[in-house]
């Protein structure tokens, strides 16, 4: 569960307001899609949830742990996939996975089982002992995803996780999202692909200029009376974020 309560964040000594009084809750078992134009505040919100940025005001809790006051406990139940897969290039894929397994305290038996499973699914099994430096962008994205899945976290936060993935991998990721949430866990991700959000997400939030302009299930978003809105998520998004 993720609870964001009246969170604000600004840059450049308050001159640029990136996130403005944002409140939302993502319940256990829910896939939450976070949409917004470039620069709307998506990545800033995500970074605050995983502890990479500190909010100026407001509170964020993950599985009941306050990210500011109880950061380590919140991190223990969360994994994060950033928008660009910057990982240790000089380590091999397996060394990186072992590193993540060690810092999250994943027991060996579970580690072996999960690494084996995800390496097969992502077709990385034959290259896992090569340095990450030799991986393509998509392969790096897959190793970061494998690392994020390795601790079997209660909460996954992903920033544009489908960018750079081939169609097969993207399909497998979407299936993984569903499995993850069917097990009662929480998944929060940002995307620009409206079709994915529409089909996959239990609920969707649209952020524009730092403010949450819409939040709900697809049915709820469609039900709002709009003068010009059509019925697709893309049309709703375009209307809500129109200058």
């Amino acid at each position, binding site marked *: 569960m993720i609870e964001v309560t009246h969170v604000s964040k600004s840059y450049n000594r308050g001159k640029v307001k990136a996130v403005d009084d944002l409140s939302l809750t993502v319940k256990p078992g829910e896939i939450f899609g976070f949409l917004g134009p470039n620069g709307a505040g998506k990545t800033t919100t995500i970074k605050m949830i995983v502890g990479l940025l500190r909010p100026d005001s407001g509170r964020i809790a993950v599985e009941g742990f306050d990210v500011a006051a109880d950061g380590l406990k919140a991190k223990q139940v969360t994994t994060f996939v950033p928008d660009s897969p*910057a990982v240790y290039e000089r380590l091999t894929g397996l060394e990186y996975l072992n590193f993540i397994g060690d*810092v999250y305290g994943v027991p060996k038996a579970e580690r072996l089982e999960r690494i084996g499973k995800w390496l097969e699914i992502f077709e990385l099994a034959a290259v896992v002992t090569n340095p990450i430096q030799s991986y393509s962008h998509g392969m790096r994205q897959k190793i970061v995803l494998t690392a994020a899945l390795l601790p079997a976290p209660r909460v996954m936060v992903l920033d544009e996780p489908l960018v750079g993935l081939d169609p097969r991998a993207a399909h497998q990721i979407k299936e993984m999202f569903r499995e993850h949430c069917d097990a009662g866990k929480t998944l929060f991700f940002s995307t620009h692909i409206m079709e994915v959000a529409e089909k996959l997400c239990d609920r969707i939030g649209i952020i524009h200029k730092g403010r949450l302009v819409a939040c709900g299930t697809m049915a709820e978003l469609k039900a709002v009376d709009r003068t010009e809105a059509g019925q697709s998520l893309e049309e709703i998004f375009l209307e809500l974020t129109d200058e």
Partner: protein
Amino acid sequence: MSKLATVVRAGLRSNFGLATIKYRILTEKKDRWLVPLFGLAALGVVPRFFGIVLLIQNVYDVLRPMGQERALLSFGILAGQLLILLFGIYYIIAAFYFARDLDLLIPLPLRPGEVMASKFAVVVINEYLTVAALVLPVVITLGVVAHASVGYWVNAVLVYLALPIIPLALVSLAVVVMMRFINVSRKKDALILVGSLVLIGVSLSVQIALGRSGGGHAGIGAGAGGTQAAAESLAAFFTSPNSLLNKVGAFFPPAIWATKAIAGGFSGEGLANLALLLGVSLVLFAGMIVFAEKLFYRGVIGLGETTGRKRRLSRDEMSRRVAGGRRAFAAILGREWKIMNRTPIFLLNGVLVSVLLPAMFVLMATIDTGGGGGSGAGSGQGGDTMALLKMLMASDPLLVMLGAALFMTICGSINGTASSAFSREGAQFWISQVIPVAPREQAAAKFVHSYLVATLGVVTSAIVAGVFLHVKAMQLAAGAGLALVAGVALTAVGMIIDLARPLLDWTNPQKAIKQNLNVLLGLMADAGILTAAFFGVRALIRAKLAPNVVLGIVFVGLAALSAVSYIILLRFADKRYREIS
């Protein structure tokens, strides 16, 4: 030509981002504390510069009646060019082959020569700054005391601008050819390391060989008190028929051309030599660009790619290689160790410096001290060091222990491992911020890594002190003990500095360690701590305390400082990890 100018300008802007510095100091107000610090450092350097200027003036007074005053100019220029030759290897390899912006530049409609010229320009500017301390005092002092003509000053500016071109173009040619062949190999990293060490070895050997043949040279940085004796020794060194200078004149003529160009001013000789220097610089630069067109891209394209063999691990192999139950502390320490040792630039500038420094000391100390140029007080630089150490060893055992401790401490702490501990993570720092490991635990693991590198320096220098200087085992053990305790404080302070302002947005690993301001700040802090320790020890000795009491007090004092620095580091990590974005 305009395209070349554009790409050179872009390269200079991204490397010497004055806009970034202005933004950090004036807008973000983050680095404001650096301004008074550098002011203070500059003030500290003034007396030393005054001593150097005084020495140059004395040498000039001795040489002038003999008509040999130009030799002083050659010496300054030559020292500058040799320095460029040595450091240029590091800079050229990093700028030409490891700058990440190459991935952006290569796809642009630019010729390989234009890309290389932009990188070359950045290195040239760096070298202007590096050699300024060596060349400018000589040129300016000489110009002032000799009431030089306008021609002297105009030519001096032109010569200074051209100074790095010839040595750097030579280094570039060697490096471009080397990388062309390294790039086809599978073991690129190892070859880059070996190649760099060979080039450094060659450059050092040339300098040592020149030092031997010339009989060494007096310390140009001698204090103001000994300037007269030093000036006489320098004069003897310059005027000897078999002097270093004459040999070098034959071996590396550009230094002589530069001297004649400056000293000659607008005379026929001055202009002819200026034309010669500029002409050869231009020809070598053009030759380098022609070479670049043929070889540069063949060396750089695909250098970052590593072709791994595709091989599935069997179930047993996987079971063996998947770790289990390792603590987070050990995992972070392992990560630090692997990344440092597998990144050639980090390895060269960090771990290897700890080993190379004592080794270089041995080489310098064993330079023949009785050659042709040295007479009277004219023992060589190596001779000075040996004489000083012998004097120390012959005197008080307490001084031997303290001297050995100082030597080991310097050898252990002068590498930039601690003061780049956080910067080296670069764009991957997000991983350290999101993992469920307390920042203090992460900092502790990084501390152990940096401290192990420092310990390597202490051990290597202890071996050098034992084998080459015949320091007794007990004295060596006491010195090593003090150095290891001092190393804790110096490592922690270096890490605190890096944590205060980590450089995480680097595109070239060289910037994370070699060109990282934090490394310089760390060295300044080390120098401050060691100076304070020196005055403390001097006060204890003057108080006529028993040697064991002095040692005990120094040990306890350093241990207390180390404990405090380490605790501050851990607390600071808890605070800073959340703030860095």
